[in-house]
């Protein structure tokens, strides 16, 4: 089969289109047997870039195909699984998705509703599971206001759409006009620019009180202002540090204003509280089935052009999920 493969950990330039043998056995991180997918669309994300440079701890032996997410049609499924041959599915694969066939992990695979394209399916699992779980951990209630940092990014844009589905009011923070446009498209109630006086604007938008929640996949220097943007009793979900630097928090900032800061990482939590991933899967499946998830699709590549997909991520200019159309839709 054809796949985009890394034979060395040489970064984006090392990715090559190659003919390799179809995957055998089951996904090494999969639970529940061999689930093989005929890939129609694959998603490439930041962890793919890190993995291509050997900077990500979770990776297979070389050579391996890139692609953290896949959407396609089930070719082989375990007998006792919720999946059957012919099912349309969306799956987290961590690697191996930019290939004609890929192994999925049953515990991180969803049924793709007919209303969603394969490209949308390849943009579904990672961002939406993370965003939903973040909002769950901070106890989001209908009618509350959530500030979303990096709102045009993968987790950020998913958080906007889920916020809308849950009846939350969202305030999106973005760094460019193009990203502001994307945030609006994803349902942001308000959009503010990170290079403007956004903290003051947040206060004005909330009657001076601040927001009840912040979802922060960015970190960096903005963290302190995110805390300042919270109302008394507010909650902040730490989802990641795409801004590069890791914030330091002086905890007296939490004390008088009764703030909560909460780290969010679903797979770790599942080990402590089994059933966590299942709960998140069910929630995303329900939202997807109800037509409440559209996803933000970015640049698209054919399989032949797919080695360039990693470079696109490295330049950090793409808005939306980088998709490889392994089998272009008619």
């Amino acid at each position, binding site marked *: 089969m054809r796949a985009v493969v890394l034979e060395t950990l040489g970064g984006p330039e090392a990715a090559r289109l190659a003919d390799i043998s179809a995957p055998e056995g089951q996904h090494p991180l999969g639970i529940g047997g061999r689930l093989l997918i005929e890939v129609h669309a694959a998603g490439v994300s930041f962890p793919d870039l890190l993995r291509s440079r050997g900077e990500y701890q979770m990776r297979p032996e070389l050579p391996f195909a890139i692609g953290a997410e896949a959407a396609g049609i089930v070719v082989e499924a375990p007998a006792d699984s919720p999946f059957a041959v012919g099912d349309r599915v969306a799956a987290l694969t961590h690697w191996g998705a930019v290939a004609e066939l890929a192994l999925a992990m049953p515990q991180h695979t969803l049924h793709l509703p007919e209303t969603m394209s394969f490209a949308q399916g390849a943009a579904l699992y990672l961002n939406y599971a993370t965003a939903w779980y973040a909002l769950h*951990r901070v106890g989001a209630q209908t009618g509350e206001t959530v500030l979303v940092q990096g709102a045009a990014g993968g987790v950020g844009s998913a958080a906007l759409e889920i916020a809308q589905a849950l009846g939350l009011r969202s305030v999106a923070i973005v760094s460019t006009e193009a990203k502001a446009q994307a945030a609006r498209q994803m349902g942001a109630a308000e959009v503010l620019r990170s290079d403007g006086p956004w903290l003051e604007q947040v206060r004005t938008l909330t009657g001076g009180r601040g927001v009840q929640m912040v979802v922060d996949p960015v*970190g960096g220097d903005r963290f302190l202002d995110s805390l300042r943007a919270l109302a008394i009793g507010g909650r902040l979900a730490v989802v990641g540090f795409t801004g590069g630097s*890791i914030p330091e928090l002086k905890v*007296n900032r939490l004390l008088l204003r*009764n703030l909560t800061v909460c*780290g969010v*990482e679903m797979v770790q939590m599942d080990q402590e509280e089994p059933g966590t991933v299942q709960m998140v899967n069910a929630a995303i499946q329900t939202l997807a089935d109800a037509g409440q998830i559209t996803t933000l699709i970015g640049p698209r590549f054919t399989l032949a052009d797919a080695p360039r997909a990693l470079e696109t991520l490295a330049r950090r200019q793409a808005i939306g999920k980088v998709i490889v159309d392994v089998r272009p839709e008619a």
Partner: protein
Amino acid sequence: MRAAVIEELTGPDGLRVRDFPDPVGAHPRAGGQRLLVEVHAASVSFPDLLQSRGEYQISTDPPFVSGGEVAGMVIEAPADSRFAPGDRVAGMTIWGAMAERALALPDYTVKLPDAMDYAHGAALWLNSATAWFAVQRAAVQPGETVLVQGAAGGVGTAALEVLKDRGARSIAVVSSAAKAQVAREMGANDVVRSNGPWLEQVRALTDGRGVEVVLDPVGGDRFTDSLRALDVGGRLVVIGFAGGSIPTVKVNRLLLRNLTVTGIGLDPMDHRFPGTTRRVSEAVVALADRGVLRPRIGARLPLEQGAEALRILERREAVGNIIVDVRA
């Protein structure tokens, strides 16, 4: 009336016991509700010392009567309040308690159980309310294990009592053998010493997993180890910084292990969500009625020695509340 008066903001030396006018009107933080108490016992704690130096965020201009907590008998109560003249009560005054009469704050006042004397009543509200609110904000469930820093302190001992009542297992962290004894008396399931390998001991006591919750009134250098003592998904409640220094946390420590850090401050919470303090008071009185809360008295002095009460705080001598008997 006789009162312990802060004349100038120079610390305990600025306090003089003298005649002082009776309180007029309502306590400025009581929303116009005049609740006048005939004081039997007052309690002083760290904020009172800070107020005497002009270093506390909530205060008033001198001369003012010192004393943050009171127990006594109601003389006058608002018509529509839960209180009536003759009621035995205890609660917060923020200042004004070391005097023959004091203005109380109705939301911060509870009826004293018959079985509790005034001296213990004066030591009831602040520590119990803080401990209960912390346990509540951490959403402690029966069967969970909770690490209590500063477990022989005022909030710490109250927390041990609240946790035992809730069916949680407590691990007390204390700094001396005497404090270990106090923590055991107050119901700690396990006691570890802060100057020993307590983090390893906590892990050993929890089969290597760590605790579900940490309650931390201490702060300081121990904070990072408190985070390390948490199991995946654990919660830490920041109550205060009795240890002096304010900890800093690099937030990636929270990310992968799904940790939650929550601050608690009752007064701001009540401003934003009115009724919070009232609910806390109701919980405190319910626990006191059932005999769950037994405040500890560390020192007891007559009103004439009001300045000495603050000095004991300054020297950090007392294990337990410092009580000033206004009517012996």
